[in-house]
Structures are given as structure tokens and as C-alpha cells.
């Protein structure tokens, strides 16, 4: 089965490298699609339900550095692998039509395949260095595809924010090239710390094999908290946890297929996935509860704040991106909660499995939503929520799929989202414990239906009549997302079968109650009685709409400081001190000295002799001295 894993991992990359040499766009596209499909098939063949890290395979790469090409096959990586590879397949299939006729197909198709392989490396890797290769790979692919529309054209479709919008001297709109830069730099920041942490682990323990670390057992405990927190910065930035959420929101400048795949279903999940699969190892470290608490707090904070952003955003994709960040927060918090509960003596793996299931639940709901709204933007030519509405009449299939996916996303029974989300909420509630746990979980559950139905309501049900005639999307586009949205029911059914004993418990939980309240309000506000507005809430709305002014901090203050610091150092130190000292002062001194020396050369012989005699006298003095 090992060969199957390696085939599953590397086939997309091979296809995408080959695609560089295929001249026609169609050829590139189908080549990558075939690669992705084969990869998906092999990922199923490689699936092996087993204990965590139970089956590992390693090929040495640089053994002295602890670098092995090694994979582990277990329940987590098996499911994650299938999820990733099938989503990749559906989304690349969708983008055959979606990206048709777009510029630089070579770039797009190469990075799609490249991304798939990188992501599958993260999924299966047992060796953290090998994982880092994939980790950097997904970061790079994300950067490349966010900035895919490098020309920064068509601001109404391809940018995030309203062109020309400014707040206190800082631009509040993001063309693709700028969004790409924000993404990669945020990720780089986390990755730098992440790299140090991996090196630390290797230096301290002599291995970076996850299975090896787990085998070390208590010896890991000496690691201390520092590497854990350095490590945490990697997943926090990659999974867009607060306060690094910003890059994910502006990442929506990428083509919608990219947003669906990378910035909703897979890459951003890499961070939380890593948090989950490393939790059993890190739980062995002394003081790990602080680490897990941090993970949980960051996650919960992200979940709440990003939900508010989703609720106030006025772009289709921004709403979805905010919701992605919120769900990533839920997963992280659930993982942190699982870790904490595990330290208190409960069985860790089942709890982590719950957090993991939310990745699956979220991915299969979010991917179709993105693809569907991609079709909407494609057809209507606008990205703004409220610019076009009543689409349910014109895009019936799409609207149906969107409804299904959205209900699953917000956690409506009996969709998949209901089970995964409610169980994750339980993790969070128990992790925090007591009233605060109930409040946090409740708040998160309450906000989800609000932003979810707001999006659906204002675009599919109500809103302004479209000005032009709108068609249903091409089948190559709608088939993938409809299939996926139907899968939410299928998976929901499967989960209902699995957890039938717990279903009642879930419905009775306070989280579900909060959800019902939220759902009721949302139905009222956005579906049945649209148009209710409150002046009193406007300042609050504005804070959310301005995304807590974080862009002002990142694009304004941080950039201003870096830019001006660099310039100040350049002019003051580099030009001012070094250049002047070496290239002005030094030559000047020698030039003056030299000129003075040469002035002795008068041409007058008697002076010459005089100098010579003076020299002779000096010699005499020196001898006598």
C-alpha cells in the first residue's frame, strides 16, 4: 500500500510538471485533472484504518539531518488524504470550465498540481522536515494562486474591498498582487518560528519523526514550552488564527476555485490538522496544558471575531472567508480543548478525532459554497453582496446546492455539519469548562446561522433583480459542487448512524440551543422579513465591517514602521555614516595630504637641497637620540 500513498502524493505534481510542457490550455487542464483523479483513487486504495502513527514507511533523504521521506498511514491521515485528494479532483474539474480562457493557464495549472502534492505531503508525512517541504509548498502555492491575476485588472471581480476606499491614509482595498504579498509574509513569519521549533526538536531529541517522538514517551517531556509555542506560530499563521486572520480574508483575490480548494477546504486546514496530529506528542511535554490552553483561546477568539467579520462583510467571498476563519477557530479550539481534556485523564484520541471530523465537515460544506458563489460571480460579474439578488430563480441548481451546503455549514441537522460542529462545540465547552465554556460555545453557534443565512438570503432569495439575463452555470462547474453538497447529507446520514446514541445529547446541548435562536433570528431577518435595519447597531457593524481595523494595523502601521525604519537606516546609517566615512571623508583626507606633499615639488633646486639637508639633519638627530 506504500506505493499507493506515494502515487497518491506525487501524481498531481508529476502531472503539473508535465503540464508545463503542454502548449494548449485544454491539455494542461485535463492533464492535471487526470493526475488529480488518479491521486484520489490511490488515496482510497491507500486508506488503512489504524492506530495513530501505527504504520510508517521511511526512505532516507538526509539521515544526518533527520530528514526522511516518510509517511504514516492511520485513521487521521487516511481520511484527510482522501478528503484532500477528492476535493482537489472536484475543484480542478470545476476549474476546467471556470478558468477557461483566463490568462496564464500554465501558472494556474502548475500550481494547482503542485499544491495538491504539497498538501498531501503534509497529510501523510511522518517526518516533520518532510512535512515542512509540503508546508512551504502549500504556502508558496497559496501565494502564487492568490496573486494569480497578477495584472490587477477588473477590480470589481478580482479585488477585495472597494477600490478607492481609504481609512486614515491606509488603502482599504487589495489587488491580487498585494493580497499575495500579505499572505506569504504572514505565513513566512509563522514559518520562521516553526522552522526554529523543528530544529529545536531535532537538536533536543534527535528525531523529527512523529512516530519516533511518540515512542520516546516521557523523554519528550524535557522539551519545554518554548519549542511548542514557536511551533504554534506555524499553524496559527497558516490557519489564519487571530491575529493573523487578515491574510485569509484578502486571499479572496484568487480565483474562486483557489479559494475553495486552498483557502477553505485544504491548505488553511493544514495548520489545525497539524495541531491535531501533533497533540498526542505534545501532550507528553511538561507544561503542555498552557500550550493547549493557548491553542483553545486563540481558536475560540478567532471563531467569534471571524464570525462577526463574516456577518458584516459585503462581498460574497469575504463572507465565506470569514466563515472559514471562524470554523478554523472552532477546529483549533476543539483541538486545544481535546488536549486539555486529555491531560485531565480522558482518552485523547477520540477527542482529537472530534476536532478532526470538523475539518471534514467544514471542508465538504465550504468547498461547494465557494464553487457555487464562484459561479455566481462568474455569471453576474460582481463580487458584492447586495449588488445582485433573487438568483434562486435563474440558477436553480446552484441555489439548491448552496442551500444544502449552507445548512450543513451552519450546523443544521441532519447534515454532516451538525454532527461535527456540535461535537466540536462540546470539546470547546468542556475545555473551557463551566459557564464560560457554555457562553463561548453558545456564541460561536449563535453567530453561524446569522452570517450563513444572510449570505443566502441576500443573494438567492431577495436582493435586487439582476440587470442582465443570468444563466445557470456550465455542468462541468455545477456537477462538482452539487455532488459535494449532496455529500453533506450522505456524510450526515453516515454520522447519524455512527453517533445515533449521542444525537439526543447533542440536541440537548446549550450550543444547539444557541444555534436555534440564531437560526430563528436569521430566518426572520434575512429570509422572511428582509430589510430590517437598526441605526443603533451601525457603529458596531462598522467595527466588524472594518475587520476590527486590523488591516489598518498591518497595511498601515506595521508597513509604515518597517518602511520608514528601513529608509531611515538607509539614509542615516548607510548613506550618512558608511558612505560618507568611506567614500567622502577618507578620500578627502588622503587627497589633501597628497596635495600638500606634492607641493614640495617647486622645481627649484636650492629648495630641494635644503629639504635634503633638513632630512640629513633629522638623520643625525635620530642617530644621536
Amino acid at each position, binding site marked *: 500500500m506504500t506505493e499507493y500513498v506515494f502515487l497518491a502524493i506525487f501524481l498531481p505534481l508529476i502531472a503539473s510538471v508535465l503540464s508545463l510542457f503542454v502548449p494548449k490550455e485544454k491539455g494542461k487542464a485535463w492533464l492535471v485533472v487526470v493526475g488529480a483523479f488518479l491521486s484520489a483513487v490511490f488515496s482510497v486504495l491507500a486508506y488503512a484504518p489504524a492506530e495513530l502513527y501505527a504504520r510508517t514507511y521511511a526512505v*532516507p*533523504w*538526509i539521515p*544526518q*539531518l*533527520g*530528514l526522511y*521521506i516518510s509517511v504514516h498511514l492511520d485513521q487521521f491521515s487516511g481520511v484527510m488524504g482522501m478528503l484532500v485528494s477528492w476535493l482537489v479532483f472536484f475543484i480542478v474539474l470545476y476549474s476546467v470550465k471556470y478558468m477557461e480562457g483566463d*490568462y*496564464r493557464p*500554465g*501558472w494556474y495549472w502548475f500550481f494547482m498540481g503542485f499544491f495538491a502534492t504539497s498538501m498531501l505531503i503534509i497529510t501523510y508525512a511522518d517526518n516533520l*522536515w518532510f512535512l515542512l*517541504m509540503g508546508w*512551504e*509548498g502549500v*504556502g*508558496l502555492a497559496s*501565494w502564487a494562486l492568490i*496573486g494569480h491575476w*497578477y*495584472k*490587477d*485588472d477588473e477590480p470589481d471581480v478580482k479585488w477585495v474591498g472597494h477600490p478607492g476606499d481609504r481609512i486614515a491614509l491606509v488603502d482599504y482595498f487589495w*489587488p*491580487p*498582487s*498585494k493580497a*499575495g*504579498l500579505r499572505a*506569504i*509574509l504572514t505565513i*513566512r*513569519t509563522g514559518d*520562521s*518560528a516553526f*522552522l*526554529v521549533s*523543528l*530544529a*529545536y526538536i*531535532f*537538536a*533536543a531529541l534527535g528525531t523529527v519523526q512523529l512516530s519516533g517522538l511518540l515512542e520516546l514517551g516521557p523523554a519528550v517531556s524535557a522539551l*519545554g*514550552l*518554548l519549542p511548542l509555542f*514557536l511551533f504554534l506560530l506555524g499553524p496559527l499563521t497558516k490557519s489564519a488564527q487571530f491575529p493573523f486572520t487578515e491574510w485569509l480574508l484578502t486571499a479572496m483575490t484568487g480565483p474562486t476555485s483557489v479559494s475553495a480548494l486552498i483557502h477553505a477546504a485544504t491548505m488553511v486546514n493544514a495548520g489545525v490538522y497539524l495541531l491535531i496530529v501533533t497533540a498526542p506528542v505534545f501532550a507528553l511535554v511538561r507544561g503542555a496544558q498552557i500550550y493547549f490552553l493557548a491553542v483553545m483561546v486563540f481558536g475560540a477568539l478567532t471563531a467569534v471575531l471571524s464570525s462577526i467579520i463574516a456577518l458584516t462583510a459585503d462581498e460574497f467571498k469575504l463572507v465565506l472567508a470569514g466563515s472559514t476563519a471562524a470554523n478554523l477557530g472552532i477546529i483549533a479550539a476543539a483541538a486545544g480543548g481535546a488536549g486539555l481534556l486529555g491531560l485531565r485523564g480522558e482518552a485523547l484520541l477520540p477527542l482529537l478525532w472530534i476536532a478532526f471530523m470538523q475539518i471534514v465537515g467544514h471542508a465538504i460544506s465550504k468547498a461547494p459554497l465557494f464553487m457555487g458563489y464562484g459561479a455566481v460571480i462568474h455569471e453576474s460579474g460582481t463580487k458584492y453582496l447586495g449588488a445582485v439578488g433573487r438568483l434562486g430563480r435563474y440558477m436553480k441548481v446552484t441555489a439548491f446546492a448552496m442551500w444544502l451546503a449552507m445548512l450543513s455549514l451552519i450546523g443544521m441537522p441532519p447534515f454532516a455539519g451538525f454532527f461535527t460542529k456540535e461535537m466540536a462545540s462540546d470539546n470547546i465547552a468542556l475545555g473551557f469548562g463551566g459557564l464560560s465554556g457554555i457562553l463561548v460555545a453558545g456564541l460561536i453557534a449563535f453567530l453561524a446561522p446569522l452570517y450563513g443565512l444572510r449570505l443566502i438570503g441576500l443573494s438567492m432569495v431577495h436582493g435586487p433583480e439582476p440587470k442582465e439575463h443570468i444563466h445557470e452555470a456550465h455542468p462541468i462547474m455545477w456537477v462538482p459542487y452539487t455532488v459535494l453538497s449532496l455529500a453533506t447529507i450522505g456524510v450526515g446520514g453516515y454520522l447519524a448512524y455512527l453517533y445515533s446514541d449521542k444525537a439526543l445529547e447533542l440536541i440537548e446541548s446549550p450550543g444547539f440551543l444557541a444555534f436555534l435562536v440564531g437560526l430563528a433570528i436569521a430566518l426572520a431577518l434575512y429570509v422572511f422579513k428582509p430589510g430590517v435595519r437598526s441605526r443603533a447597531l451601525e457603529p458596531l457593524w462598522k467595527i466588524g465591517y472594518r475587520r476590527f481595523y486590523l488591516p489598518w494595523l498591518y497595511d498601515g502601521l506595521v508597513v509604515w514602521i*518597517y*518602511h520608514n*525604519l*528601513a*529608509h531611515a*537606516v*538607509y539614509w542615516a546609517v*548607510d548613506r550618512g555614516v*558608511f558612505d560618507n*566615512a*568611506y*567614500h567622502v571623508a577618507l578620500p578627502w583626507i588622503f587627497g589633501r595630504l597628497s596635495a600638500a606633499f606634492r607641493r614640495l615639488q617647486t622645481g627649484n633646486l636650492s629648495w630641494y637641497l635644503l629639504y635634503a639637508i633638513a632630512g640629513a639633519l633629522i638623520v643625525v638627530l635620530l642617530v644621536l637620540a
Partner: protein
Amino acid sequence: MRGPELYAADLLPMILAVAAYAAAKRSTQMAAYISAVALLPLLVESSFSLFGGYAYYGSMGPGLWSVFDFYLEPFNAAFVFTVSLVGIMVAIFSAPYMEHRAEELGIKNTIFYLTYGLFLGGLAGAFMARNLFGIYIFIEEALIASLFQVLYYGYGDRVRITVMYLVWSHIAALLMLAGFIVLYLNGITSVPIPSGASLPASALYLALLLILLGSFTKMATLGVHMWLPYVHAEAPTPLSALLSPVLVGFGGYAIAVTALPLMPKSWLPALTWYGIATAIYGGLMAYVQKDIKRLFAYSTVSQMGYMVLALSLNNVYGLTAAALIYLSHGLGKAVLFMTAGYFIMHLNTRDIDRMGGLYGYNSTLAGAAIVGFLNLAGILTVGMLSEITLAVALTKAYLGAEYIELYIAFAAMLVVTGVYAFTTIKNVFFGPPRVEGEGPYDAALVAIAATALLSVLLLLPPMSSSIWANISAYAHSLVRL
């Protein structure tokens, strides 16, 4: 005489330089290809050593002839390999570029190709020389050969720049020489210095200070970097593509083989911080630049900071990282300078403000240049290998929560590199297209793309496995116990 193949490989570029000189009178292309072919034996031999783990030794005779003793072990083979590989690529690149430049200046390319082989032969010789004086002799030869190129084919106020280059490089070389002499008089005559060799303290400190100061000036680390941005910006671009990656890194090699095995351990932390400071400073300054060649020059300063950091860690990982940084920076920076040369050739500009959206101008070029930047930033190219090795070296040398400030500084260094790398990519290749038309596919582009591709391939096993294993096996002897 032992090891004639080493001498043959090193002398061939110098001898064929004359043929290239003659050929350049008629055809620049012919001269360029002669220059490239002349480096092949060197590439082959260094590859044998680097990938195969072989060691070669050469000697011309006893006594004063021992000045010309050569050695080629995987550690220095990594440097020689980079020199010859980049040399070949740049030679191919230079065919269209120098034709363009010579036309612009109204002169012939004869001097360029005469000095090209001498420069690279000298440089490779400096890395292969065993005798301390031999090292000095070869590095000066390389310096003087490259001087002609700046003087004849440079940009801007090239006479002033040439003086600057000559003076500072000469100072650097002489300081090193002075340090070598002190070592020599204390019985240390050749490299690699056996670890455990010891000197009287005063002589040791003097020698180390001289060698470090000389090497730092050569590497243009913080405080003595003043000459590099000017020289590398104004040199003819093929030369910049050689100076920046392969010549300045010589300082790092010199520290590794002559200073490090003798250095008192108490000096190392200061050196570590100095390396990080240089890397961050260079990265910040690179961010400010508007002239793309100056930007790359400051980026070289930054990368040399990485190298100093790697060396200061004084373990096998650090030394291996230093050799790998030389390799990855060499390939990456060569790609970038050649890209700048492509712009100069076809767009007649070095000003980043006049670039933008150049992806559409030539996508192959853009892809290659991005790979070049990834080498510097340490992402998925051979640069990543050096970055990982460096991080391991750092944590092996300084392990524990008490070194948190060092870890933060190290991470900041990586971020600063990322900032200028990706900002430049955005400013140059992305954004609304500012240039019409399409960049031509010429020999220059082939060289750029091939270099970029190689820098990716070298990351993959089995290449990287054997490189790492061989270098580290020989780096053991350089570590101060």
C-alpha cells in the same frame, strides 16, 4: 608532480582565455562558448568530489613550489562546483549580453573574454589551494582579472568604482595575507588546518583578527560593506552575476578553513550576533533599493550574514550550512543578476519603478527569477536545504529556552529576507503591466532558466543526500573542539 588533473582543470580556463580573446575579435558567441567549455573539466572534477565523496590532492613539487599545492575534498568541492557551474551559465548568458554592451560602448569584447577565464580559474584555484600563500595568490589573480571587466564594461562612473573595488578588495586580500603570514610563521602553512593546532595567544589573536577583518571586507559584512553595492551595481552584469555569488563568498570559505579551526570559543557568540545583524541589515537595505542591481547587491550582504552566522556556530551542521549557503546563494543570485541583465539588455532599465507586471513580458524569465528569490528565502530549492541545516546548526549550538532572543533574531532574519524577496517579486513581475511586447528567447534566457532549474533539482534526493553526506563528512575536521 601529483594530481596533474587538478592543475589541468584549473589552468584550462586560463589557457583557453587566450583562445576566447582571439575568438572575441570575430564573434562574441564563439568566445562565450569557449569560455563555457573551458570550465567543464573543473565542473566534472568538482562534481566527482562533491557527489561521489572523492578527495584529490595535487602538488607541483617541494620547497617554494608548495605554494601551488592543490586539494579537492567535498567541502571545498562545493565551492569549486558552484564557481564552475555559475561560470558556465554566466558564460552562456554573456553571449547576447556582452554583444549588446559592446555595441553600446563601441568597443570589442576581447578584454572581457580574456579576463573571464583568468578570473574563474583564479577563483577556483583559490578554493583549491592548500598553501596559504597560494590562496592569496589566486584570489588576487581573480581580483585583478575582474578589475578589467569593471573598468572596461562597467556602468556609471566606472573608473571611480574600479578604484573602490580594487582598493577594498586589495585591502581585504592583504589583511588576509597578513593573517596567513602570522599563521605561517607559527608553523601553520596549509589548509585545512588540523584541529588541535595551537599557537601562542598573542599571535593567534593577531592572525585571527587580520583574517576575520580581511574576510569580512571581502564578504562585505556590516560595517565594511560600503564597496559592494556600488561595485556590484555598476559592474557589467555577467560579472555581477559572478562577483556577488561566488567571489564574496570566498571570505566565508577563508574563515572556515583558516580561522575557525583556531578560534577561541569565547569569540563565537559575538560572531553569531554579528552574522545575524549583517543579515538583517542587508535585508533592510535591500528593501529600500530602487535600482535592481543595488538591491541584489544588498541582498548579497544579507546572505553573507547568513554565512557568518553558519560559520560561527562551529559545528558540522554550521559548516555544512555555510557550504550549502554558498551553493544556494550562488545559484539563486546568479539567476537574479542574470535576470537584471536581461532587463538591461531588452528593456534598458534597472529601475524597479519602471518595471511591474513583467510576468507578461516573459513568463519563463519570471518563473526562473522567482526560483532565484526562493533560493534566497530558503523555500523549496537547495536554499531550503541550507536554511534547515542552518536552523539545526543554530539549535545544536544554542539549545534551551535561555536562547530565546537568538531564536527570535534568527526568525526575524528569515522574515526580513522574505520581505524584500517577495516585495521585489511583486514590484517587478506583478501588478499592471508597464511594458508592452514580449521578451525574446535567447541564450541568456536559457542560462537563467537552466540555473534556476538546477537549484531546484539539487534539493532532491539523491543529489542533496550525497552533497550533504559528503560535505559534512569533511566538515568534521574544521570544527574547533
